[in-house]
C-alpha cells in the first residue's frame, strides 16, 4: 500500500504561541479522500488532531481546508491526486484559528444574519406561493450555497478587511432578492449599498473559482453593483 505525507498545521491555544507544522505518513488506497486521510491520522496516529466534518458528501460544508494553499472540501478531494506529496493541510485562510484545522466562523454567521436570509413578506392569503420554473431559475444557483466558507478563504478583500460582508453572504442576499416570493429588497439594500457591502469587492473572482457548488458568488455580488449604482443615482426620482 502506498503512503502519502500530510503536513498539517497544528495550533493548541493552551500551549502554542503560534501554529506549527506536524508531519504524518498516511497509508492510502485510491478511493480515499483527504478527509479520510485526516480521519486515519486521528484514529491511528494522533488523536489530538482537530477538524470539522460531517456528511462526507459535499453538502454540509463542514470540512473545508487549504490543500496546498487552495481552499477545498476534504471529502471530495482525493489523496491519490496529491501523491507523492507532501500535502500541506491548513485551516481555511482569512479566519482566526481556534484549534488545528478548526476556524472561528462567528464573523460569517453575523454577516449571514445581517443579510436577512429568509423570505420577507406576508404569505399568500390562501394556499401557497406559486412560482414558475423560469422564476426559480433566477435564483436557483445561489440557493445551492452550503456555507462552506471556501469563498471567504479565497477572497483577499475579506482577508484584508474582515468587515467586508463577503461572497457567500452577498450571494445569499441576492438569492432572496431574486426570489419572486420575496418582498425584502428594500430592507436588504442598506447592506448592499455600504462601503463593506458590494463595494468591498474588486472582482478578483477567485471565490467563484473555488466554490464546490457552482454558486458563482462573484456574479451575485457584481450584479448588485449595478443595482446599487442605480439605487444611488435614481433615489432622488423616487421622492
Amino acid at each position: 500500500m502506498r503512503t502519502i505525507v500530510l503536513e498539517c498545521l497544528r495550533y493548541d491555544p493552551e500551549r502554542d504561541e503560534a501554529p506549527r507544522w506536524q508531519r504524518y505518513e498516511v497509508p492510502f488506497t485510491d478511493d480515499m479522500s483527504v478527509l479520510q486521510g485526516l480521519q486515519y491520522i486521528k484514529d491511528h496516529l494522533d488523536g489530538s488532531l482537530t477538524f470539522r466534518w460531517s456528511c462526507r458528501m459535499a453538502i454540509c460544508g463542514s470540512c473545508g481546508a487549504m490543500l496546498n494553499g487552495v481552499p477545498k472540501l476534504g471529502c471530495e478531494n482525493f489523496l491519490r491526486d496529491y501523491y507523492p506529496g507532501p500535502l500541506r493541510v491548513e485551516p481555511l485562510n482569512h479566519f482566526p484559528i481556534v484549534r488545528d484545522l478548526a476556524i472561528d466562523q462567528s464573523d460569517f454567521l453575523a454577516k449571514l444574519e445581517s443579510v436577512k436570509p429568509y423570505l420577507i413578506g406576508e404569505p399568500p392569503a390562501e394556499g401557497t406561493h406559486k412560482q414558475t420554473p423560469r422564476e426559480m431559475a433566477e435564483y436557483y444557483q445561489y440557493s445551492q450555497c452550503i456555507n462552506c466558507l471556501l469563498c471567504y478563504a479565497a477572497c483577499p478583500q475579506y482577508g484584508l478587511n474582515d468587515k467586508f460582508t463577503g461572497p457567500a453572504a452577498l450571494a445569499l442576499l441576492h438569492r432572496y432578492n431574486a426570489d419572486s416570493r420575496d418582498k425584502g429588497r428594500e430592507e436588504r439594500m442598506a447592506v448592499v449599498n455600504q462601503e463593506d457591502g458590494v463595494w468591498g469587492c474588486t472582482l478578483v473572482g477567485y471565490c467563484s473559482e473555488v466554490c464546490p457548488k457552482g454558486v458563482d458568488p462573484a456574479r451575485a455580488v457584481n450584479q448588485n453593483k449595478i443595482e446599487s449604482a442605480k439605487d444611488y443615482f435614481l433615489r432622488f426620482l423616487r421622492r
Partner: protein
Amino acid sequence: MVGGVKRSNKPIFWSLFGAGGMLSALIGPMLIFITGIAVPTGLLSRETMRYERMLGLAQTGFGKVAIAAVIGLFLFHGCHRMYHCLHDFGIHVGPGLKAAFHGFAFLGTLAAASLLLSL
C-alpha cells in the same frame, strides 16, 4: 442613512472607473500601438501625427470631446484602480488618499478640457 449604516459614495467613482475601463478596453491597445510604437518607429508614416493634422483634430467639436474623453476617463480609471491597488498591497488607505487619487484624475481632466477649449 438607513438603520445607522452609511451608504457608500462608491457608485460615482465606480461609474467613472467603468466608463474609463470600457473605453480603454476597446481602444486602449490600438491607440497605444499607434501613438507609442507605430508612428515613432515609422511603421506608420510620421504624417499620421503631424502638427497640422493633430491641431485640426483638436479644433473640431468631435476632436475635443474625443481627446477629453480619452485623457479624462483613462485618468479616472487608472487612478481609481491605483487607489484600490494600494489597499490590496496592505497599505492603509483613508479619505485623504482617496481624495488625492481622484482629485488628481479630476485635475488632469480639467487641464485637458481647458487646453482643448483654448485651441
